[in-house]
């Protein structure tokens, strides 16, 4: 098991390293950092002065190593746009995003897993059709639109939930539903097909021949097998939520990492953007690693 984790960890680290190189080089080639700091109306001399002052006249490889080694010393760079160290921006904004991500994945799990199980246990029944209907609708509806509709219903028509800001957990209910709904279709369908496959497997017939039936049969003998693919997808979805909440955070005015990313991109704030891309990637890789480890824990055949 330890060897398995070590192997996966090596893969994760090398992907992370590659990613850091690609993002740094891409961003610094696409945007001229000196120009970005100086602003659009700056004179040529001003830009050149900034280039020298900030050291942008050195080769890009040198600057990459400076940046990359800085990360490990806790120096994530200075934001030109916010005039703050990037690290303090991250620390400020991360709690909101973490709360939103965890709550929205909980919403996904609470809706899709029971629905998927019910659908699999009664294939082609009314429940199954309704679940399919919900899945198709949730897949088709864009996030921002669902967000606006929610605001319309729960803030204007029936003022139950606050619609803007991030002061209390209550503020996160609507955005979590919006963000969580987008993952419901994939997870629910996977739960359904997974469980359907397992129910028809030989070992379930064995369990039935031993007298197991009903919920006990499903929970003790089938669910763990059917959850294998679901776990990987959920972990990937959780990774997605950290990076992909840009729109939802903007609609509900939550000051999280997604909104920070949007504002930094608009402000051409290279130091913040490149750290955010790197952090999102690392989070994504981490959850993939977690999914692999969880899968190996659940399925002994994968522990090689």
């Amino acid at each position, binding site marked *: 098991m330890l060897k398995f984790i070590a192997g996966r960890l090596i893969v994760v680290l090398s992907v992370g390293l590659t990613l850091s190189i690609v993002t740094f080089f891409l961003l610094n080639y696409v945007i001229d950092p000196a120009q970005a700091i100086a602003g659009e109306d700056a004179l040529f001399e001003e830009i050149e002065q900034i280039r020298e002052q900030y050291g942008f006249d050195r080769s890009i490889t040198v600057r990459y190593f400076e940046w990359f080694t800085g990360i490990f010393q806790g120096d994530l760079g200075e934001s030109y746009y916010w005039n703050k160290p990037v690290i303090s921006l991250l620390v400020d904004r991360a709690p909101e995003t973490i709360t939103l991500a965890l709550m929205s994945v909980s919403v996904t799990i609470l809706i899709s897993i029971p629905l998927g199980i019910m659908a699999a246990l009664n294939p082609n029944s009314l429940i199954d059709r309704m679940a399919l209907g919900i899945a198709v609708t949730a897949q088709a509806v864009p996030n921002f639109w669902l967000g606006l509709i929610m605001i319309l219903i729960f803030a204007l028509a029936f003022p139950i939930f606050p619609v803007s800001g991030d002061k209390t957990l209550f503020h996160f209910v609507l955005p979590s539903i919006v963000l969580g709904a987008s993952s419901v279709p994939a997870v629910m369908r996977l739960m359904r097909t997974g469980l359907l496959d397992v129910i028809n497997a*030989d*070992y379930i*017939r064995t369990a039935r*021949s031993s007298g197991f*039936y009903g919920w006990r049969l499903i929970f*003790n003998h089938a669910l*763990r097998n059917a959850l294998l693919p679901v776990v990987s997808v959920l972990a990937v979805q959780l990774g997605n939520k950290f990076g992909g909440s840009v729109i939802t955070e903007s609609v509900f005015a939550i000051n999280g990492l997604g909104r920070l990313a949007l504002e930094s991109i608009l402000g051409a704030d290279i130091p913040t953007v490149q750290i955010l891309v790197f952090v999102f990637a690392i989070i994504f890789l981490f959850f993939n690693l977690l999914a692999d480890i969880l899968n190996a824990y659940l399925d*002994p*055949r994968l522990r090689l």
Partner: protein
Amino acid sequence: MSKFLTIQNLDISFESNNKNLKTVKNFNLNLNEKESLGIVGESGSGKTLSMLALTRLLPKQAAVSASSIIFQNKNLNELNNKNFYKEISGKKISMIFQEPMTALNPVHTIGKQLLDTYLYHNNESVDKGTKRALEILDAVRLPKYKQRMGQYPHQLSGGQRQRVMIALALINNPSLLIADEPTTALDVTVQKEIIQLISELRETIGMALIFISHDLGVVSQISDNIIVMENGEIVEKGKTSKVLEKPAHPYTQGLLNCLFKLEDEQKKDKIENTPIIRVKEISKSYKLPAKIFKKPEIIYAVKKVSFDVKIGETLAIVGESGSGKSTIAKIINGLINKDEGHIEIKGQKIDNINVSDRAKLIQPVFQDPYSTLNPVHTIGYIISRPLMINENKSEIEVRNEVVKTLNLVGLSKDYYNRFPNQLSGGQRQRVAIARAIILKPQILICDEPTSALDVTIQSQILDLLSDLKAKLKITIILISHDISVVKYFSDRIIVMYNGEIIESGNSKDIISVPKNNYTKKLMSSVFSLKK
């Protein structure tokens, strides 16, 4: 005395496309306590379905009706599903199945699966359950049974898994065990052990046994009484010895004839003494995935194997799964490359023969006719492919040739435009043979050509092969694990074990006086009819 189990007028039908398909009709059964009953029939005869109906394991689409099912003086028809599962399944009536590879849950340990089943039906402590699980694992003679509790099914061999499966079925001391083809998926030598184990356990536990099988030989060894089924109906029943001695129904007679035929020997043609194939010290090995700080382990599938095949002879290569017999077939066919050694065909090194010429010399026939024919092509197209690729012939010539070959394998030209899924297993195998012989090859390599087929079909296919062999003067290499097929069909036998030839010689000698210990075990594991 009241009967232990009686089933009266059991009907099973399946609803499909608004048609009501009756698969089992008027099934009746009387079973005494501790009796052993065999149910024999070919695939689709309803033998398994009727027992799944008894244990309520049929899919929802199946409609089951029976005028009465009485088990230990209890009318099972009056029992609802919940009570049936709680009181009967796994407690009074247990089942073991054909496929031990998939019948155990891969994500739970052996111990957990046994313990679960025990505690579910018995209100006992975990300690007592563990003790019982160990006791039953010992009883099914699972080697190193104490360590197995924490292991997962994939860490066990097929025979070991079937032992665990039996342990699982017997942990609650049932009074009836239903065994559905429990040895069909296992190697022959393991088969015999499992059969012996089941019949011993039946006596020590004192339970009744219903043994479902397509193999009359196996059933005759283990059962007091026998039921023969065909097309969903019981065609004959009675004492095993009586039914086998004087079968009344033509279907039973047919089944027996096939078996006798396989027990007999077939007339052998003259064999020329010149070899057509010479295999010299060929080896094939596979590297296991490397481990850190260790040299990668090398496993030999075939290790320095040499033999000759003479013109017109039928050479059988026998051995268990993993013995390397199929690897040899694939190497000669050119489907995989050998690591070392060389093969000569008619004096020419096989590496120097181009693919097209090789195809005209050697053709394969494979085991599973259900997956070897491409389902999207017609039979005519499938058979004509080798001709179209390797010979320059007009469309009409090809068509005529295909029809001629179809006739040769006993199929009419009506089959030309049909698709594989419209054919039975036997017909499909005929198509596979037609495809193989259309180029008029001199050598046919048959890799378990009959293993996937029912006995009556088996003997038809073997007859067809020997007929073709005489007509077309083909040399045949037969790969098989089935000694009765080999005995019926082959002139010479090579016995393989772990990638090496351990014995070879004339069929007669090897079958009647095997020298090697493993060969002896292999030969004694064949079930002949017990009377």
